[in-house]
């Protein structure tokens, strides 16, 4: 240590800062040890010796020493960065190099589609509710006007857990549960998992999602039913989408309809996806069957309504061009990552 007095020592350290800003990597490391080393660093020693100074000097030296320590640390850090990015190495920093990233997670595309569908129906005043996946025959079939000894019950091959207890084959039981608990006006959408005894293949899964919808109020007509689903289809697909209603059969609706939209692949021209019909089925729907209203304690002379059900997996596959439903359950990172926002 050449300078005898702390103040002189400090100023000597201050002078080295300019030199430090130009140092190469080896010299920079030396500086670090020389100035800030735990044992013999010059600043370390000064700070350690503060207690030996007279009180008035101690305060001033202490402040100056701490300030210098910060400056030195900043200068070293800045120089290290320069050296690392090559800013002053004669080669300019290459800003085309990739930035630092973080992992981005994705909502599953089926969940995203479910959320989007429910959001659109929220605009039409539908609240979002759920119900149990384990159901009774009564709620899954009987209350919905599906007699167990009628071929209509075969439309859905059922997994049973015990006699009379089953895995719901559709989200429709929540219709009955809701109508029993609340009075009209009722407007609900019900997303949830359902079960059918279908072998896993490219277009079938034994477990899949469904969204049920139900509206019951005074004066709901077939015209309003069409209007609501037409609104949904145009909001979900595009405003110029053609929507078609075809007669169909579901035991719990009368009249029943199959709702179809113009094929999203060929815009109605006919292609393999729509089997050359130009249209794609997106949901089954209809006016609530009066027997269902009666079964749930609602007077069908006073109230009417409509109900619908759709398959989010199928809609997801149509929307994103996914060829195989199994991909939606494999959870391949390369697949899921494509849906990160």
């Amino acid at each position, binding site marked *: 240590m050449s300078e005898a007095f702390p103040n002189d020592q400090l100023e000597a350290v201050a002078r080295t800062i300019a030199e430090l800003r130009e140092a190469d990597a080896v010299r920079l490391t030396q500086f670090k040890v020389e100035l800030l080393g735990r044992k013999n660093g010059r600043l370390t020693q000064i700070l350690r010796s503060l207690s030996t100074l007279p009180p008035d000097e101690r305060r001033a030296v202490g402040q100056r020493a701490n300030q210098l320590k910060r400056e030195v640390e900043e200068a070293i850090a800045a120089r290290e960065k320069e050296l690392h990015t090559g800013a002053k190495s004669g080669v300019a920093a290459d800003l085309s190099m990739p930035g630092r990233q973080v992992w981005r997670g994705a909502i599953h595309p089926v*969940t995203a589609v479910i959320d989007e569908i429910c959001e659109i129906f929220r605009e039409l005043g539908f609240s979002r509710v759920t119900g149990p996946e384990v159901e009774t025959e009564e709620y899954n079939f009987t209350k919905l006007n599906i007699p167990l000894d009628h*071929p209509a019950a075969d439309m859905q091959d059922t997994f049973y857990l015990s006699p009379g207890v089953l895995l719901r084959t559709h989200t429709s039981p929540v219709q009955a549960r809701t109508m029993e608990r609340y009075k009209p*006006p009722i407007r609900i959408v019900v997303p949830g998992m359902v079960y059918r005894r279908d072998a896993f293949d490219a277009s079938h899964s034994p477990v899949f999602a469904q969204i049920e919808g139900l509206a019951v109020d005074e004066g709901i007509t077939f*015209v309003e039913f069409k209007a609501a689903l037409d609104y949904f289809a145009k909001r979900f697909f595009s405003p110029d989408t053609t929507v078609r209603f075809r007669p169909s059969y579901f035991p719990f609706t009368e009249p029943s309809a199959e709702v179809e939209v113009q094929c999203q692949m060929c815009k109605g021209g006919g292609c393999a996806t729509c089997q050359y019909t130009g249209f794609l089925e997106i949901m089954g729907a209809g006016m609530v069957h009066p027997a269902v209203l009666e079964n749930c304690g609602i007077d069908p002379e006073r109230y009417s309504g409509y109900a619908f059900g759709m398959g989010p997996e199928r809609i997801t596959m149509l929307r994103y061009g996914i060829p195989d439903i199994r991909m939606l359950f494999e959870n391949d990172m390369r697949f899921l990552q494509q849906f990160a926002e």
Partner: protein
Amino acid sequence: MNVSINWLSALLDIKLDPDDVAHKLAMLGAPVEAIEPVHQNLAGIIIVEVERVEQHPNADRLTLCHVNNGTEVVEVVCGATNVQAGKKYPYAAMGTVLPGGLEIKGRKIRGIRSNGMLCSASELELGTDHEGILELDTDAPAGTPLLDALPIGDFCLHVEVTPNRPDLLCHKGVARDLGAVLRRPVKLPPIPGDPGDSHAPVQTKKSGVVGGVEVTLEDVEGCPRYLAAVIEGVTVGPSPDWLQARLRSIGQRPINNVVDATNYMLFEVNQPMHAFDRAKLRGPKIIIRRGGESETLTLLDGEERTVDSTVTAICDAEHPVAIGGVMGGRDSEVSQQTTDVVLECAYFDAKRIRATRKAMKMSTEASYRFERGTDLQGMADAIQRAVRLIIAVAGGTEAGPPVDLYPKPVKTPAIFLRPERVAHLLGVEISQKDIEGYLTSLGFAAGPKNGRLAVHVPGWRPDVAREEDLIEEIARLRGYDSFPTEMRPLRPSSVPSDMAQVTEARVRRVLTALGLNEARTLSLGPAQGKEAQAVLNPLSTEEAYLRTDLIAGLIRSAERNWAVRERNIRLFEVGSVFHAKDGGGMPVEGRHVAGVITGARRPPHWSDGGKYVDFDRWDVKSLFEEAVQAVGAHGTVLEEEGRWVLRDGNGELCGWADEVDADRPAWAARLFGFELDAVAAPKPLIRFQSLPVTPPVERDLALLLPAEVTARQVEEVVARRGGKLLESTRLFDEFRGKDMKGRSVAWRLVFRSPDRTLRDKDVDVVLRRILEELKERLGVERREA
């Protein structure tokens, strides 16, 4: 249901275009899945007359035919030996493509040019005979396209029929719906060779005699109506071409004229019928009764079945000869030797047939129809037409009027339709005249009665039972597309949205923001412990149980990702889990959230110099804590037996985080996971805290902790003794030295008073308090520098 366009055309007496029919049927509720051309690939084949046949000059086995094709006579070399002058044959001119794809080209055969080709049945896909040229029995002049002369060119529509519409399982029914929109009446086509008249059945109660056969109806519940006719002196053999073509056009294989006639009736008017050989019926008797003890029957398919009391059996004097409505027995079937036929035309109870069909695990064209409901009122017409058809195709005479056993005739009451109800449900005024028009065009009888319409439902529409069913018919015929789409003002729903959905959405948001991808795994899987709820009728043992947790599915997903060499895996799922209840009953259903992470903590960056850090247990701990917070669960994550757990107020486990076992390849990193009950707890409202206006005082506290003391214990003391002035505590370092008895852990404490600037001595007092208690209670001391 396969529908022939030719057959429909015959019923409506109009030429039909298959695409137009398909569209109309779709808009009537019976979509067409496929339109299959039948022999349409014979469009280029014409009928020719062979004028002269001579030996090929250069080949013994070939002939040279002079063929009149309607415009000229051309020479055709032929290899078959059956061609005769003066007869007509199918001919493919040069350039024609045969059904097999072969294009006919003019070429020299043994020095003589052959202009086109005379065709065999197999070359035209009209049969299996490829030896001889197909000789045509036709009046059509030479040059006529083959398809114009023979009724074989057709289109087969594969119509999807919903279970409520048994009437659409036959051509007459499809034609009826189509006729209603085409405004054409439906009329059964004439039968070629129709004998012209037949006896009307004689209706009795429970027994009658026809053609010497005594028919007795005992099981009225299983068979409310049974008709039988006897035709004597038939000649069993192949059906005429027109009948074979009809059946082939819808994919049915012709068997013999009698059986083909009954099949024809099934596909024309939806009335299954069965023909017995009278000679094989003991008695001869037919008794319709329930099966008895230890009775069996060998069916047409060769299978022997038990015929017990749940089954409606058709029996002769001794044994069952058919399972009513399902299948006939082998021993009484019509064969080449049959001369006298007993024809059955019955109505079987739908539920009974369904039960029998399910118990026997078989479905036939007949059972399919009876199960959905046949036309109880059309049976007399059906049996008369069937008798005439059999006589037309197989000869013979009718042995007196058929018996018609119908003990309790069913009278269906009228349905009353209120025109204002139609408007009320459909939202559009439809005039009573139009309503009547729509209904009568479908065969309903409608007439005004007390301001309403009294509507009688025809027998073929068992699905129509109440007013709304009629309103659907009106909407269907008017066309769904003809209704406007018009929104009304809405009243808000009385149903509140489900809290759980809000919670789960929040969990998804938080976990995706932390870099995890949402997974969806199947809730059916292999058994997971004894709490797993079994499925009674699983598809496979791999999917025989409901899951009790989500982690197992996520681990399988991680393994699948490893299998495609993906090292960095971050997945979570929100889903249902199920626990069986002791003693059966409904299992307990819950919602869980779970996640797995493995691989690099961050995407590798070039500035890391090739070093990257993998996830470790501290990552999964914080992930778990984030999930706990997102779910809104109460309680603190605690350590227990080397892992972290969350327990509810009753001490029940409701979540954990740990390293998890998996089938991990050598190159993969460790896998960490967590699982948590996704209880639907409302998040407490956030209360705003005033921002501080006074400066903080920071103190670092390096402490020596004996081996058994945990950071949590230290923090509890610090928090308690720190009092109001202690703003925050952050553990920032741990050091374990070789010679140390315990370890050194360092915290940064921030002190602040909301209303004054703290002085060092204020803080010193607090620190001393903290250190005193730490030493006293935990033996923790400050570490000297």
